[in-house]
């Protein structure tokens, strides 16, 4: 009986996975094959990867993109967690407004946003690369906000915070040592999402004339297309493997928002 059910359930899923796998991995493997070709000798080798890693700029831009993304994550958590906790606890009348605002960046194409940013900010903002994390925060907001919102919806927030408060914790302590640990699944998802989005952001960065890892790759491509392909393969495959591994390792009960 169980076997019969399994036989009936599996083929469509297997077929779906097979097709998806072909769709995703055939171009990827084909590009990988291309990236390890060595035209000089006609064989295969890691030449282009070696070249990329030995470029001084490679680590310079990886470092820069990483710390910019780190700052974005920090800004996102510092602003969103307290705001959302307060919104959930107070039943304020402006909850609807803030919910709506948080979705607005979805409506605006990034190109249009970049034009607006370029003509609006005063010099001292435009002259520092620190404007980027704030703009990345805006781009990630619809996703980050929703992810934290789902997390806070799924816990008895009022009870928890009242308990912490009556045990003598102030608000800061309540948020840091009670609320964040309880919604750590959502917090982790928010961090991963914001970090990934900031790390890969290209449009806004290039239109505001900043250099980060993704824009450096297009710059490299002008001289060494094979090197650029090798770098692109690394920047697609490495997050793929790390994130998949992390998902499979984190125990399921920590993942909120999915049933």
């Amino acid at each position, binding site marked *: 009986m169980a076997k019969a059910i399994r036989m009936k359930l599996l083929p469509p899923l297997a077929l779906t996975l097979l097709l998806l796998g072909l769709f995703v991995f055939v171009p990827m493997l084909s590009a990988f094959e291309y990236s390890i070709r060595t035209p000089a000798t006609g064989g295969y080798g890691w030449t282009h990867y070696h070249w990329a890693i030995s470029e001084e700029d490679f680590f310079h831009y990886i470092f820069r993109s990483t710390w910019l993304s780190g700052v974005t994550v920090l800004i996102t958590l510092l*602003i969103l967690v307290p705001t959302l906790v307060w919104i959930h606890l107070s039943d304020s009348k*402006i909850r609807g407004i803030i919910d709506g605002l948080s979705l607005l960046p979805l409506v605006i194409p*990034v190109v249009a946003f970049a034009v607006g940013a370029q003509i609006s900010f005063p010099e001292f903002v435009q002259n520092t690369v620190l404007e980027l994390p704030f703009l990345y925060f805006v781009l990630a907001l619809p996703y980050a906000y929703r992810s934290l919102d789902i997390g806070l919806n799924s816990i008895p927030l009022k009870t928890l915070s009242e308990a912490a408060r009556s045990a003598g914790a102030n608000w800061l302590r309540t948020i840091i040592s009670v609320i964040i640990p309880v919604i750590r699944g959502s917090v982790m998802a928010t961090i991963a999402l914001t970090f990934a989005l900031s790390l890969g952001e290209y*449009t806004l960065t290039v239109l505001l004339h900043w250099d980060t890892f993704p824009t450096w790759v297009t710059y490299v491509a002008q001289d060494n297309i094979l090197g650029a392909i090798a770098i692109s393969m690394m920047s697609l495959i490495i997050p793929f493997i790390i994130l998949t591994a992390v998902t499979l390792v984190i125990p399921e009960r920590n993942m909120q928002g999915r049933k």
Partner: protein
Amino acid sequence: MTSQVMEEGAPLRRRAFLASFTKNFLPAVPFVLIFGFFFLFPIARLIYVSFLSNDNNFTLSNFRTAIQEPYRTGFINSIKIGVFSAAIAAFPGALAAYFIETRGNSKLRRTIAVMSGVLANTGGVPLAFMFYAALGIQGQLTKILKYLGWDLYSGTFSLGSFVGLLIVYSYFQLPLMIIVFSPAIVSLRREWSEAARNLGANQFNYWIRIGIPLLFPSFMACSLLLFASGFSAYATANALTVGNLPLTPLQIGGLLDGNVSAAQLNLGKALGVVMIVISACAVIPYLAIQRRSAKWQKR
């Protein structure tokens, strides 16, 4: 007597107002300030400046130019690529989401979710180079297809052409569909299908009467989001086209960089505003439908 009460009432009221302000609005201030300065202000200024002429007088001429050639073709191409890439990815994506959500175990579902997230979000430039390597003239995939009897490059095909971009776009549109459509599938309750079966419905009846009517609004909503995503994509198109395919995001980028000069300084802003309007026509219905379906999707 009355005047005395009035006099005492004022400071009291002010204190009450302060208390209510502290309670109801104050904690939102950091968020509103940052969001206002870094998002609302630039967008408002963009809209304002798009109505200014070169000597800062009110004018509609930027918009008049924005809907003429070559910008008209840009909009038509961008809308077309949004519609086609959404149409290609929506149904396969929905079907894949359905089978993965209903038949996959939780590990598989989470892995797919993460992989879709990586493909849909970090795509852009790396994706363009990946396809350049795979489907370029020398690419292995091109050779495989040729071996199978389909010579991509026998005609006018290039990755920077409309069809080429469509192929590359589907690579991030399909995962995006899986991400945004999965919640709708999850909310289809098993009880409904069982109830329908108990009442004598077969698989076909269930889908016609219950499944499709329930999923259709979400499906359309997600397709609209895909349209907006394809319509405004910049990075991939910028890396693959060499000025041969006019698309509005690229035209705006050209004007912003000063690569293209225009008699009207604020033309790029007007193009941006038109893009916002078109994108809003797709995203706002998406959000509205999502909100409506969220009501019955809550368990």
